[in-house]
């Protein structure tokens, strides 16, 4: 064989090895995708199937535990009722979350800038975190009645603290030399806040917001339980008084979907904003 033939052969085998490496890497990537996306979905599906089978085979009465197929059917048959109440719950949860986030950032900023205010309030805020706030829900009815104000205020009340604590941590997380640089340039506190502190606080703020959106939904549902005039929480209470287990679970399924969607929106916003600000994704 000639030298040229040998060289061609060597090149061929190098090309072959390269292709093998690429194929192997692709396979590993697909395996990872399966492991982290498909596998958890399969687990959930398996649980639903076992549930379905267990209910059918053992003849469990629907009032104790309806099968997933019954719940799906019920969701379809009462879709208008679910829709109207879901709108109310979602609107109030989103409004509560938005107000809690705005107030939380404002309070965190004032605490970071005023050492007196911080000394007066911060230990109390931390202490307040320890109170089982759900126990206070009936008070809100006494104060604000059984309307949307009551539910909204309660949702704000319980989702506000995680935002405050996370934002304070974030705002004080700025490197000391960065603040020294700003002071050296005689920048105002207002300028330093918007140009430096707030963007630095974003990763913390978003982790607070992710807790807050979950808490806001809890707050609204608890509010609906006790104000008993509107929303999915009200529907659940009402159905339970009639022993309509299937309707309860239908409403819970819709609540899960709402919770997942709202959390998904906050996570998506987090991804976009943190990427724009060059923070490492949390």
């Amino acid at each position, binding site marked *: 064989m000639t030298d040229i033939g040998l060289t061609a052969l060597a090149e061929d085998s190098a090309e072959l090895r390269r292709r093998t490496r690429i194929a192997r890497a692709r396979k590993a990537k697909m395996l990872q995708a399966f492991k982290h996306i498909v596998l958890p979905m399969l687990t959930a599906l398996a649980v639903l199937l076992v549930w379905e089978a267990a209910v059918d085979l053992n003849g469990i009465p629907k009032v104790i535990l309806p099968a997933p197929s019954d719940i799906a059917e019920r969701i379809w048959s009462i879709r208008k009722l679910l829709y109207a109440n879901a709108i109310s719950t979602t609107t109030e949860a989103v409004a509560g979350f938005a107000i809690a986030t705005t107030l939380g950032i404002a309070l965190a900023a004032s605490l970071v800038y005023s050492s007196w205010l911080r000394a007066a309030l911060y230990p109390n805020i931390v202490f307040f975190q320890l109170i089982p706030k759900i126990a206070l829900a009936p008070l809100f009815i006494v104060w604000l009645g059984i309307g949307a104000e009551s539910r909204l205020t309660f949702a704000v009340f319980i989702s506000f603290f995680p935002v405050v604590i996370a934002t304070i941590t974030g705002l004080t997380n700025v490197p000391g030399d960065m603040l020294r640089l700003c002071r*050296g340039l005689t920048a105002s506190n207002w300028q330093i806040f918007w140009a430096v502190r707030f963007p630095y606080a974003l990763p913390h703020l978003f982790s607070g917001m992710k807790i807050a959106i979950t808490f806001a939904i809890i707050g609204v549902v608890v509010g609906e339980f006790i104000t008993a005039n509107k929303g999915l929480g009200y529907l659940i209470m009402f159905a339970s008084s009639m022993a309509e287990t299937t309707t309860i679970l239908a409403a819970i399924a819709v609540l899960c979907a709402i919770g997942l969607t709202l959390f998904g929106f906050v996570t998506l916003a987090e991804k976009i904003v943190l990427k724009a600000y060059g923070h490492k994704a949390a």
Partner: protein
Amino acid sequence: MSDPRFIRVRDVAKTYVAGATEVEAVAHVAFDVAEGQFVSILGPSGCGKSTLLMMCAGLEPASDGTIEIAGRPVVGPRREFGLIFQDATLLPWKSSLENVLFPIRMMKRDPAQYRDRAEALLRQVGLGDFLHKRPSELSGGMRQRVAICRALIHDPELLMMDEPFSALDAITRDEMNEALARIWETQRKTGLFVTHSIREAVFLADRVLVMSGRPSTIALDFQVPFARPRDPALVETPEFAKICAMLKRTIEAGYARSGRSAA
């Protein structure tokens, strides 16, 4: 023309109260710096040299004594100072160019008017191809070069540097010293440069102030005899080595006097 007492430090001291005792970090330091002079403040870690610099920058109050810069006592930070710290402290979400323009925004001036200057400075330190890159896309040395440009953007009269290269590896550090020497030779600011590297102090400065251990005072005020512009090969000459050895002995003697080991 140039003011021989552009910086005037008189009997400056810094004491911290720790419990019932007072810790004297800097004890009665006095020196002058002429306009356009580059002075290194050299001393071991924790000797109070950074505290001294922060007092000159108006970012730390002095416990005693007076500091005057450009004929006015320093009572707080001033815009005619440019600061460089140990870490580059760039905003992670801004490009090199935007980071260099950051002081302009903080001073509420029009960034558009300084854009050309910012680009020119970045080109001068070899970052012409990295104007629109973010800090995460730059090496440690490149980031610190951006920080140097940021300190110079508003054309400050006095550049204060607090161990700016001590977080970098030895090779990058030599590169940075050359970059700083080159840019300083074109800009000719008055410079205060705090470092614990003897080589760096001598290579960059017209004058080296050696600080002793705590409570620190100035143990030696040394005029560096080398002409400018300085060649990187200067550090390999016997004269350079001799001066470094002498300064090292001075630092060790200063430490022995303060009752601590130089190790």
